[in-house]
């Protein structure tokens, strides 16, 4: 029996009903293909036994081919690979073009992975900021609350319990095609106000994220990539502080990166 329990808050039903219909039709006709991907990610490398993550994701219209999607989310992953994330997804329908929606992502070894979305929380404007969090329900609990919210009008909350999943490493991720394929595959995301969570007794506390950027293919923090605020020619880099970073279209055609690792912190199954 599944331990999942949904708490879903509906707002703006009337306004979004038409979009929900469009999404439903689009989903029925859309085949999602898992393309070979690069994953740009930042993790809290200094803290691996934490109980939550939160932050803002400013989401910008990406560019990519048909039948694909991009997930931008904050997540927790543990050594078993179990992953729970929350954020926003952009996906492309062959007829309706680019769409987005709030998303919760779950990977559990032995079961598989799920992208969870709701009917009436799509159509987030280009450049808008959403808040996202994944936080343990209670000390030592195996249950996690994943939330994504856009400015009070759209909210997705999903709770999932996974055996043995009581702590993890907080991270934030953007996902794109390989930088060597096509510079038109872009993801102009900006992650900010990142925090991780811990318990002091039964009180939930949080601290600055103290980001460590790692990226499965490459990243660079050289000066020419500090262009994220104008939205061009950036890969993955700190913007203003360790709590804030951006990902974007690649400037590299070769793998000449400062650090080039798979840190093992990527959300599994993505």
């Amino acid at each position: 029996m599944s331990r999942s329990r949904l708490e879903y808050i509906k707002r703006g039903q009337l306004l979004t009903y038409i979009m929900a219909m469009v999404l439903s039709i689009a989903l029925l006709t859309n085949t999602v293909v898992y393309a070979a991907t690069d994953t740009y990610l930042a993790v809290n490398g200094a803290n691996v036994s934490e109980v939550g993550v939160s932050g803002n994701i400013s989401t910008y219209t990406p560019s990519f081919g048909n039948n694909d999607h991009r997930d931008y989310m904050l997540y927790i992953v543990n050594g078993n690979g179990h992953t729970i994330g929350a954020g926003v997804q952009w996906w492309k329908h062959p007829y309706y073009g680019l769409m987005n929606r709030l998303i919760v992502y779950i990977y559990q070894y032995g079961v598989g992975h799920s992208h969870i979305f709701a009917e009436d929380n799509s159509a987030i404007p280009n450049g808008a900021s959403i808040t996202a969090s994944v936080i343990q329900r209670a000390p030592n609990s195996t249950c996690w609350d994943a939330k994504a919210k856009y400015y009070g009008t759209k909210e997705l909350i999903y709770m999932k319990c996974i055996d043995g999943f009581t702590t993890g490493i907080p991270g934030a991720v953007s996902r794109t095609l390989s930088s060597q394929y096509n510079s038109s595959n872009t993801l102009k995301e900006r992650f900010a106000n990142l925090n991780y969570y811990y318990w002091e007794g039964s009180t939930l506390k949080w601290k600055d994220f103290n980001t460590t950027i790692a990226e499965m293919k490459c990243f660079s923090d050289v000066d020419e990539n500090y262009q994220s605020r104008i939205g061009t020619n950036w890969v993955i880099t700190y913007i203003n502080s360790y709590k804030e970073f951006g990902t974007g279209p690649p400037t590299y055609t070769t793998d000449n990166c400062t650090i080039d690792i798979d840190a093992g912190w990527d959300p599994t199954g993505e």
Partner: protein
Amino acid sequence: MSMNGTFIIIAVLIVTGAIVLTLIVANIKATQTMDEELKVLSENPCVQNALAIAQKNIPFDIKIRVPTYLPAEGYRLAGITGVLEPGGSPGGWVSLYYWDKEGCLLTSGINEHDAIMQYKAVKVTILIPHSPDGDYKNGDEFASNYYSYYLENKEEFKADVRLVTLSNGYKGYGNDPFIGIGKWIKIKNDGDEEVVQEEPYPEPGEIKFFHEKDRVVYIVRADMPLVELIKIAESIK
């Protein structure tokens, strides 16, 4: 000091050095601390980047035991990932990747799943416990806790999980490779969930066991039958 005395001292130093070196080499093949293992790994060009991060974050004295049995000739260490808290704080994990091909794994945008399923790597993960005593009382507790959870949620699982006792007596559980599911779930306005799309997602086999002597959990994942994974696990002495 006479010439003879100097000669004797030099000879003793040489012999002592040789003995120490022999012991170190022997130790590498058997069991060693994380620090020692990382020194050895530093000579492996496939793991140096991860090494730089891992070396900063070694917690309490953790032993890494490596498999002496791998499924075919030519399998070698081709990548490592490590997630460890600094300052001796507990938690985290270290994963070692073995494969039988040229070059280094995990440096070309290959994630864990692809490394195992497409490139047929064997992944050995050591879960660092939250205290030196380990997170479980014994292997029975480790295995039975999870197996109870599995039975309670069996309809959700695609893996056919079985309890396993290794030849050394350690307890664990595991499963053959299986076809997991990638789902797209829509939450309807009435709160009900609707699966709007499902797709197969092949997953590796796995064995997990609690190493009672070291008080850590080992996970072996590969696209291989459970019987083969058990052989690998049993070679982690």
